[in-house]
């Protein structure tokens, strides 16, 4: 109701040197007053510019030029993020992906993250977009690279140990027994193309006889694999019969450097993917439903080590049987 009363003063303001107030900027968006918004984008106050960039999105005609300029040049990361978000609503095709590729060099990770999010949901997934996602998958900042990798990779769920399940959270679980997995007898295969999953190499029946023999409890470099990237481990182990009081079972990894995806008997159980801090974290996986008690079980672990001296399942793994 107050917009008409503000409209005339806005015109005057747009031609003066005074920076418009936030209220005036909001009104200008409603009134379609591009000159005032343009002026507001020159404000020294980031909050004013953020309001202005948002108001630009309300103009009847897309202010693509202003948005592109802001996305490229504004000093405030939120203004740049907003500009990219708004441009994603109007730009399309090669021009858009080219523009995003340009912005992918932004210094601020949160801007790059917004770009990756836009790329991840873009349809159709063109070759250019795929390439941009692959590039972003190597981003030094984990949330950015993870988001890009997740867009290229279908397995996302985070692992949960029994102890982290909500229904056990308020109980004192008792360890009945633990059983170490063999440290030798594993099979290992690099996956630089990140494509082995397309062959369903996590399938229990998958033929891994041509893979390298490997051991765990030490990084893969100790076995001569001077390698950064994605690799796979497989082993078939004998699980003990279910102890009388055991109600639930965890598969506990001492540590994997640095990210891991776990399958047991072909069932995907989740990922331990928290970035560089994950290299030395012990984590558990609830395998109660997937474990075949007293029988052979096939375990597959995909490990990603984007960069660094060491990688792999470098600490022991054991089964832990628990009761309430």
């Amino acid at each position, binding site marked *: 109701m107050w917009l008409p009363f503000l409209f005339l003063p806005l015109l005057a303001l747009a031609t003066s040197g005074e920076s418009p107030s*936030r*209220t005036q900027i*909001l009104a200008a*968006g*409603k009134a379609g007053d591009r000159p005032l918004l343009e002026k507001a984008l020159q404000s020294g*106050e980031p*909050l004013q510019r*953020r*309001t202005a*960039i*948002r108001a630009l*999105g309300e103009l009847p005609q897309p202010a693509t030029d202003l948005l592109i300029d802001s996305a490229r040049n504004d000093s405030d*990361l*939120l203004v740049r*993020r*907003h500009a990219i*978000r*708004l441009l*994603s609503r109007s730009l399309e095709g090669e021009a858009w992906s080219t523009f995003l590729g340009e912005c992918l060099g932004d210094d601020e990770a*949160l801007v790059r*993250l*917004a770009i990756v*999010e*836009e790329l*991840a*949901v*873009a349809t159709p997934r063109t070759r250019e977009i795929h390439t941009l996602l692959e590039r972003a998958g190597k981003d030094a900042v984990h*949330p950015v690279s993870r988001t890009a990798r*997740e867009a290229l990779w*279908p397995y*996302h*769920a985070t692992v949960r140990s029994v102890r982290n399940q*909500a*229904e056990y*959270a*308020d109980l*004192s679980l008792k360890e009945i027994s633990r059983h170490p997995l063999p440290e030798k007898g594993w099979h290992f295969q690099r996956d630089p193309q990140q494509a082995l999953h397309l062959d369903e190499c996590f399938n229990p029946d998958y033929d891994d006889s041509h893979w390298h023999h490997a051991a765990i409890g030490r990084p893969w470099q100790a076995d001569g694999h001077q390698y950064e990237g994605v690799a796979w481990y497989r082993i078939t182990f004998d699980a003990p019969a279910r102890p009388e009081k055991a109600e639930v079972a965890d598969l506990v990894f001492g540590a994997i450097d640095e990210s891991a995806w776990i399958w047991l008997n072909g069932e995907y159980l989740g990922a331990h993917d*928290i*970035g560089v*801090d994950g290299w030395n974290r012990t984590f558990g996986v609830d395998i109660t439903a997937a474990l075949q008690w007293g029988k052979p079980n096939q375990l597959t672990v995909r490990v990603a080590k984007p960069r660094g001296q060491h990688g792999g399942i470098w600490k022991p793994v054991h089964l832990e049987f628990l009761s309430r």
Partner: protein
Amino acid sequence: MPFYLSLLAWLLLLTPLKSEPWQRPYQGDSARGPDVIAYWNFHPDQPAHDSGPHAHHLEIRGEATRFVADERFGGALEIAPAQGEGEDHREGVAAPSSVVFPEALTLEMSVAPDEALGATAYLLDKKYLPGSDESAQAHKDLGWWLRKAGTGPFQYRMEVDLGFGESSEILRSDVFTLPPGEWSHLAFTYDGQGRGSFTLNGEWVGEGKLSGRTGASLASGPFKLIIGDRVGSVGHRFAGKIASVRISNGVVAIHPQKELLLKTTGSRSVFERMETPAALTLSLDNRMRRNLGAMKLYWKGEGDKGTLEVPPLAEAASWVAKLPIDTRLRPGSYHLTVELSGEGISQSLEIPYSVQARAVPHQMPVVLWDFIQPERWEEIARVGFTHAFLVTHGLGSPQTLKLDEKAILEGRQRLDRAWKAGLQGMVQVSVGRDKEFSAQYSRIDTEGNSYPNLNGNFPQARERARDLGDVLGSAFGDHPAMSGVLIDTEVRDSTRPSFHQVDIEAYGQPIPPEVANRPRGVTWRQLSNFPKDRVIEESHPLLAFYRWFWKEGDGWNRLHTETHRALKAKSHPRLWSWFDPATRVPSLYGSGGEVDVLGQWTYSYPDPLKISLAAEELAAMAAGRPGQAIMNMTQIIWYREQTAPKGSEPQSAWEREQPDADFITIAPDHLEAAFWLQLGHHLSGLMYHGYGSLSGATTGAYRGTHGESGQRLTRLIHEVLHPLAPTLRQIPEAKADVGLLQSFTSQMFAGRGSYGWGNGWGADAWIICRHAGLQPKIVYEEEVLAKGLEGYSVLVLAHCDVLTRPVVEALQAFQARGGVIIGDEFLSPAILPDLLLTSFDRDPRDPQRAKETMLAKADALSKELAPVYRPQVEASDRDLLIRRRSAGAGEYFFLTNDRRTFGDYVGHHQRVMEKGLPLKATVTLHREGGVLYDLVRRQPVALEASGGSVRFHAYLPGAGGGIYLWLPKAAGDLSVTAPTQALRSEKIELRLNRAEIDSSTVIPVTLTLRDPQGREAEGSGPYGMKGGEMTLPFNLAPNDLPGQWEVTVLDGLSGQTATATFELR
């Protein structure tokens, strides 16, 4: 009749017979008559021989069993105690399975127990299986055993499990003492009409009545009859000697003497002052073995007396009378004297009873969420707890939905005793506790496999939930000391979508297969064609399902409501039902159904502010049901593994003393900080759990590892909470201008939400806001849709990845009118936030870094917000947490010092910063002028005014807090007026007045009413005086002391007192 003849008659009546039949081996017809089913006297010549008419001879079952000679009975059976825990040999002697129990029967045996008699000792068993067993044999024959009871040494009760073919029933005796090494005669009679009776040495020790069992016979089962142990499997042998075991047809008179039993049988002996009607129950059982004519019963109490005509009583008949008592008496202990005369009989009885003072209004329950045994009742009352679980029952257990009369009587008597100790009782009940029932009406997955969680969509489940409430309400609901009923605690953690036909019918359409085993939602990234901006329609099929599932579809909210309604229909109006933990669900209204109170459990580590967040989340949930109150719990226990892992070095003294402790005591500074934080919220009560850790337990799961915590809580309750509680309960929340959206949609589509655990980025964002000086109210999407965002200036969107279109439109409208949105990197691209608050990864092994990060983010956020939003109160130090509530013109500020370091209790393990540090800060109120009062110290506080604001300096010890009241102008003097004269039993009114207080502001006062001897009268205590005036009615008692009475009122603002006197005549 001459006096000496009357005396002689009495002597004859009252002198015990020198020897009762059961005190020596039975002979003649008593041993071999037609009514004897079996009689084993273990005579040394033929110890295994049945001396009765049916030759049910015995055989020894185990190596610890033997026949021995005995001076008194000639021979006896002796069973040695088990040599170790878990020893499970079959002992005792076995008689053939052909023993058949008649419809009415009498069981007898003499026993001389060993000192090592176990907690459960089988006297005789042919039933073997409990009634809960699914076997077809479970309801045949009977078992008779002793079970440890009471609190004294060698105290037991007898229990008999009777199998009627289709079902079983258990009868229990009263508690009695069974001295080791001495012969005692035990007997049980069953009349075939539902009534069972127990005697010890011929004395009646209780009876029970089974409804609906008239004319029902015991079914005959296949097992042998075992004396001295159970038929199989458990090993609850009777350790000691057994002699003279007889099974008879019909009810055999066991009582040693003729008597007229005059006794109180009522379930109440404690009454609330002015309670009406109030009566003691008296019963007269004619055990004289003759019919009695009419008699008179005189009764006399404090200032009251009367006469009752006792009608003629046939032999074995009973008569029950209600004797009214005067509850106008001043609170205290009294007794009623009863005298019975007539028919040559004269008996008297003194019946003690108590009158309890009525509670002053607006008290704050301090609930101990633990089952507490009577010996600790006075102890917990001294700490300041007002409520605890005091009564147990078998409701919801596999056996029965009924409570037997004895259980009800004992429960009510416990409530009486607890009330006298200053406590109110609570009980738990849950329709989900019966695993068999839950399995019968369970959830199922898409394959039809059962999931062990009761499915509330079954009508049978709802009916049972109703029955539970009805039975419990009928048993205890009218008792004034029964205050709280916890319904279905912790049942929703394990709920799951179910695919039974009843679920499909309840939903009204097919259930989406994607939700199978995913009660907490799906991942939007894995859904095809998901909108790029992550904005979905309200009608999205998965969202619609999850909203239905969590609000009504899993059935639990309805089940809570069914139990609640049935319970309340049978209960006094002050009884409250509650459900907890109520926010272990997504952010959607409805948790707990219609219960009166929602509760939540919270651990204070790593940051005590989690306790405040839990209260905020409870308030958000309760907002969906106007009138629903909230009580928030602080866990007294800490998980050892999360605070001081076993084996970690270095170790403090308690770790060396109790290395095996699994749960330890909350650090005293955390307990105190949590206390102050709680008071900042509009709560109806405080709850605590884990008394073992407060009381210094050195065994069990909960250990006392820090002695100061209990002392600290005691001091805080008595010095802070008690005087202020009536004020605190009447101060509403201030109208919120900052909100934090908890998005149900994001929880269901992006795995967000902490489900009441206070973990994760959503919780940390809220904590950061508090350190930034904001007071963010938790906002549900339902509130946004129903009420819009009118009144809010700032809205925080943390973990709001996916939103619905109407919510997005409301948020955009909010921004369009100038509202400020603070968003994180996860926010739906549809919303362009004004400010950015980025998440951080909390390393549980580095709480100091986490706190430093949060304080830095709070500082940055505060600075960024400054141009567009200014909180009404600000602190110069981000560790000083302030919460504001208001009532009329009065504004209440709650301060808590959150400055902490690691300390040396658990802090040396670097998991929890548990030690509070002192803090000095300046608090700025953006008010022009006004006056400020310290409500804890009862004194005004100097304010410094400048630039349109006023300031004061706060000096708080580690974990300390304060409560302040700001008023626009100084409050006038407090005055109290009373009538100059009053009469006993009269109702008078005291009037308190104070000028310059608006109609809504509440001010604490403490009133003391003393009689001429200086004793405090009912009505003394703390009050919250609203609107500057208060009228207090007082019922003077008929036995109050005449003379000059004094009324003193302590002013909670100034510490000054006002007095008035009146003359009682």
